[in-house]
């Protein structure tokens, strides 16, 4: 009951933000919501399946570059088409990547995902004629539900229609993921997280389930990546860089991977904390490193763990 009240309050707050917050803070909500989508997917793999990926920036990058290619090369302006394409591209690329990665666990899995991420990063960095290299590619302002809002000032567009569009995508992503983790499939993932050998004796094919969880998480990352592309109006290789993969793992740990909403809370706190710390000191990464160290030692269940009694899950 308390949870539902908190959720209702959060929903009201998110709906009201463009009316009560300054434009600056409303714009900060855009990356938060895009990361929220990414992290819902990442946590299906991390918190529910027990696999820590250090290469999911690959799929964020794929989603973002899909949006850039669609608007730049194919003159497609529909955000719905951009999101669907990002989801398909990330999902299709994830299929072979996942098939190779899920054969390994623990650090080997993490390193392999990191390697694939770096392959993509190097590709977009070096194939200048196709990807624009380190300068990246521009992303034209997309139509929302078929409406061309090109006449609207950019800030107004982002803080108004685009904000609510992104919020709607986040809500749909939350509802879908909630359904997935509370489905028979979600239960099988939890058995694999807890004890893969035992899961196999029950007839649960561990590699197949891990593969599917990986592909779903990549689809979420792709959609999140496409959502990130519009506010900046440009995509560049740093989206696919390994430190970006590290950041989203950090956000997940910050909020707490053992809780469904933990990663979303982590994304929110990360974005605002980063903004605050960057405005105070230039060495903000040092501060973030210290926070991560304190977090792992003092609150391994993340911020949400401070409010719930559920014990920390050991990720195999």
């Amino acid at each position, binding site marked *: 009951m308390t949870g539902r009240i908190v959720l209702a309050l959060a929903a009201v707050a998110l709906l009201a933000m463009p009316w009560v917050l300054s434009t600056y803070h409303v714009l900060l909500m855009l990356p938060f919501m895009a990361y929220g989508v990414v992290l819902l997917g990442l946590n299906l793999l991390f918190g529910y399946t027990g696999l820590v990926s250090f290469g999911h920036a690959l799929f964020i990058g794929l989603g973002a570059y899909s949006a850039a290619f669609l608007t730049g090369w194919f003159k497609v302006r529909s955000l719905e088409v951009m999101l669907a394409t990002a989801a398909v591209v990330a999902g299709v690329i994830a299929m072979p990547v996942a098939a190779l990665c899920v054969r390994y666990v623990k650090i080997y899995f993490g390193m392999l995902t990191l390697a694939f991420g770096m392959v993509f990063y190097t590709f977009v960095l070096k194939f200048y004629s196709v990807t624009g290299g380190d300068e990246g590619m521009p992303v034209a302002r997309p139509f929302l539900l078929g409406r061309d809002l090109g006449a609207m000032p950019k800030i107004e567009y982002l803080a108004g229609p685009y904000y609510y569009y992104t919020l709607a995508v986040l809500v749909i992503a939350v509802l879908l993921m909630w359904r997935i983790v509370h*489905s028979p499939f979600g239960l099988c993932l939890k058995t694999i997280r807890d004890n893969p050998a035992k899961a196999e004796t029950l007839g649960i094919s561990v590699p197949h389930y891990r593969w599917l969880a990986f592909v779903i998480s990549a689809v979420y990352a792709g959609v999140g990546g496409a959502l990130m592309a519009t506010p900046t109006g440009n995509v560049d290789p740093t989206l696919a860089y390994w430190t970006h993969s590290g950041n989203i793992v950090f956000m997940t740990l910050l909020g707490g991977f053992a809780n469904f909403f933990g990663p979303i809370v982590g994304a929110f706190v990360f974005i605002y904390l980063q903004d605050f710390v960057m405005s105070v000191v230039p060495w903000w990464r040092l501060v973030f490193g210290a926070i991560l160290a304190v977090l792992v030692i003092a609150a391994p269940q993340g911020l949400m763990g401070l409010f719930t009694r559920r014990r920390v899950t050991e990720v195999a």
Partner: protein
Amino acid sequence: MILHAENVSKHYGAFQALNAVTLGVSAGEFVSIIGPNGAGKSTLINVLTGLARPSAGSVRFKERDIAGIGPVKLAKLGMARSFQLVQIFPDLTVMETLEAAVVARLGRGRRLLASLAGDRAVREDAEDVAALFGLDTKRHALARHLPQGDKKLLDVASAFALRPEIILLDEPTSGVSTADKTRIMEILVAAAKRIGLKAIIQVEHDMDIVFTYSDRIVALHQGSVLADATPQAVQADQRLVDMVVGRRRRHGA
């Protein structure tokens, strides 16, 4: 014969773990495999359950060659097993553990968007098994919080939730108190009758358990079958008692 191993050998490098073992199990039998440490009991269970491929010989379950097919396919064929060390899902509740087994048995694991809570068939089946194993009052307890005896029960119960035709138990009462041992075996035998299990094979060190519950005893020694007989025949063979049963049982019997 529901399970038949013929001339099964298994070696790891130069070490011969099993040497031409032949063993058949028919419907209605409770077979115990006994022997001193290193006799090859666990290796035999691993070969019989398709976890390890025999170096020579064949293993057939329901007339199908199952050598090395692995636990996933074996579970679908109708054979379940439990391990010597208790295997649980620490962060799942008792009900979630049993539901996972039922979901796997019914082939519903790929249902991504179905509501597990709304699946009555899964829930009722899992509740039945929980009641059968006396775990119904602890349905919502996390597996990691259960006492050791209940963890062992949950481990075996999840194998039973697969409604297998045959179950192989590697020391089902190891690591639990003497009182719990009898409780676990009584529950196990009653549950086997209730779900219509065709056969049980267990590896067991506790000779009281072995002689009380077995229809047949297979004694292993250095990877070979030393005897395959009824409990009465084993007890009557003084040489056998000395070799594999041990001094305590000889004096206590």
